[in-house]
């Protein structure tokens, strides 16, 4: 960027800052505007989730999992419940499986809307953020209709669900899908192909594929770097293997493969795929079925351990559960996708300008609750 070097300035972005998605401190070493090193400091939101889980029963863990990634609570619950049912060998009935998939996909759309809107806000586009929040409100209304909560649901229980679907849910969801599909195209026109936005994000923060795998990056971030890997297709759990949907992969549409624009665009395309899955799941939803049918009387898993991964909107969410035969977990570890996504920031943000560092941070779509637990 030039041969003149002044003094290096050490700058703290955060912990209180409008652009970091939560309480995160980034210590940035800059020379003028060019950043030479980015060091994240975590732990401001550490709430001792894993230690708590060693003191409460298995059912009581579920509200705790909600609060880890508070923007995608349904998929957190889903991951835990799938792991526990694998450990205890419980099979749930068809209606429960379909409802779980419907809720998880709606949650995926809601989380992507917020992540994309916040990214636009960091770049300086104020309007798409508000449009996306307006659409997200409709999804939260659907959730509120079902279980009474807008953000932290405690909905999926080991062996079933907490509430059955209310009357009129299926019609409301169909109405929402019909309303929402054209909005994605409107949004694509407004922001995705906007020249200024493309200038800000294309070729910025390239994440090569092998670096991504070595850093454990997963989910849309990995798919944007060109690796076609989605747990719903490559390691299916629940009934995902019955639905037909594509996996969008970053192809360097407006720059190189794996830049911020790709990470952004992959999420937009994923929302469309989620709509496809939702339509299929809604049409094959069985009308009969008791959601409390397979709830065990007491959750006492056999002695052993399991590691199970599911696909959350941010990547692969893994639960490592070790049980010692009682009704309290012996050890529960949550492997969060945002933790691994944040670890890669030093690698890809060094050498860019200060505004780019914030753009890269926004494109990784992290949630501090999940990183710090």
């Amino acid at each position, binding site marked *: 960027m030039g041969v003149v070097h002044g003094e290096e300035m050490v700058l703290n972005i955060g912990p209180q800052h409008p*652009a970091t998605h939560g309480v995160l401190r980034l210590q940035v070493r800059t020379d003028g505007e060019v950043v030479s090193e980015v060091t994240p400091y975590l732990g401001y939101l550490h709430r001792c989730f894993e230690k708590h889980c060693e003191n409460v029963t298995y059912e009581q863990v579920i509200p705790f999992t909600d609060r880890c990634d508070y923007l995608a609570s349904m998929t957190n619950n889903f991951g835990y419940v799938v792991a526990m049912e694998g450990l205890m060998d419980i099979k749930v009935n068809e209606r429960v499986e379909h409802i779980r998939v419907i809720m998880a996909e709606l949650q995926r759309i809601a989380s992507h809307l917020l992540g994309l809107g916040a990214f636009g806000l960091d770049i*300086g*586009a104020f*309007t798409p953020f508000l*449009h996306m929040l307006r659409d997200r409100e409709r999804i939260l209304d659907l959730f509120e209709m079902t279980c009474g909560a807008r953000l932290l649901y405690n909905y999926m229980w080991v062996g079933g669900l907490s509430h059955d679907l209310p009357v009129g849910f299926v019609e409301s969801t169909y109405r929402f899908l019909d309303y929402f599909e054209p909005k994605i195209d409107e949004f694509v026109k407004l922001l995705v192909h906007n020249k*200024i936005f493309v200038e800000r994000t294309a070729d910025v923060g390239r994440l090569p594929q092998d670096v991504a795998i070595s850093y454990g990056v997963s989910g849309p971030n990995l798919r944007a770097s060109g690796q076609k890997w989605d747990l719903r297709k490559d390691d299916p759990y629940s009934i995902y293997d019955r639905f037909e949907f594509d996996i969008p992969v970053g192809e360097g549409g407006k720059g190189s493969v794996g830049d911020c624009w790709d990470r952004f665009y992959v999420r937009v395309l994923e929302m469309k795929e989620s709509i496809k899955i939702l339509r299929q799941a809604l049409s094959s939803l069985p009308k009969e079925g008791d959601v409390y049918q397979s709830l065990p009387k007491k959750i006492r898993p056999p002695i052993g351990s399991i590691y199970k991964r599911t696909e959350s909107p941010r990547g692969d969410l893994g639960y490592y559960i070790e049980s010692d035969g009682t009704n309290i977990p012996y050890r529960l570890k949550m492997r969060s996708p945002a933790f691994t996504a944040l670890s890669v920031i030093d690698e890809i943000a060094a050498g860019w*300008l*200060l*505004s*780019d560092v914030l753009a890269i941070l926004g494109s990784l779509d992290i949630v501090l609750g999940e990183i710090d637990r």
Partner: protein
Amino acid sequence: MTVDFIFDFLNQFFTSLAGNEFLLLVAILLPCVVLFGFITIYALVVIYTELKVSSFIQDKVGPMGQGVGIHAGKWGLLQPIADALKLLSKEDIIPSSANRPLFVLAPFMIFVGAFISFVALPFGDSIIIADLNIGIFYILGIGSLAVISLILAGWSSNNKWSLYGGMRSAAQIVSYEIPAGISLITVIMLAGTLNMQDIIIYQQGGIFNWILFDNPFIPVAFVIYFISALAETNRTPFDLPESESELVAGFVTEYSGMRYAFFFLSEYANMFVVSAVAATGFLGGWQSPFPNALNSPGWGVFWMMGKTFFLIFIMIWIRWTVPRLRVDQLMNVCWKVFLPIGLVNIFGVAIWTVLFG
């Protein structure tokens, strides 16, 4: 001109003091006080407009419910007054490690810079406080005063974020003055004078006599001037110095209460000044678009205000639609795109005028 008019009026009135310098002083200060009142009311109006226009664009409701006699209605007309009262009543915090004299000086300087450009703006046929014969040149020159005050604000806050904001802002304003000036040169070449009222009189005779439609190169100059004006007033897409999501609040991070209000006010005042200059130079000022109708002095004020507010509305519209540019892209656009096009423009206008009159 206004000052002459008032001086003559006072001369007739106070015949005993006729010709005295005291009357001259009153004749000068009176319009300035009126102008100050005008700026205050204008600020309230434009803040309300920005809130309402942004809420229409963003599909939200905006200010509502506070209005004299329209309490539960759809207009929140008292919102800007409430904002102003809130800012007045806030605690005045000066950081202990800040450079006190400069910290206090910066908001005043920037407001003074905006205010003294107002005295040269033509509001109507003979309604102008200082009819300088270097009108446009004077306004362009005063615009640079903002740079010093922004650097002062950024540096004296003793805060790395403010420093960043101040530096970026200085670079941006200084660079974008050049394309703005070059675009205005085309106007000056056609009108043949730097005097604001003479430029407007040159454009009399209806909409097709306006400089904008004179020459195919002029619309290009207009676009360049408008975008450079956006950059000079630190509006999105060039609002990097005060970008909310990156630098907290840029160079105004440490300012609170009335001092912050001054920065705020002067940004809106600057918007008015550059829109008025664009309206004068390109859109015919207080000339009515119909050749022979609606051109009394009262209508003149209406046309001038209308054109200026239309350009301000476009500025607000652009702010809420478009993301912001990065610093080096900003500089790129200025030096590598606008400057060459502006220079080519000057040649184009000159050659066209010579060939086609």
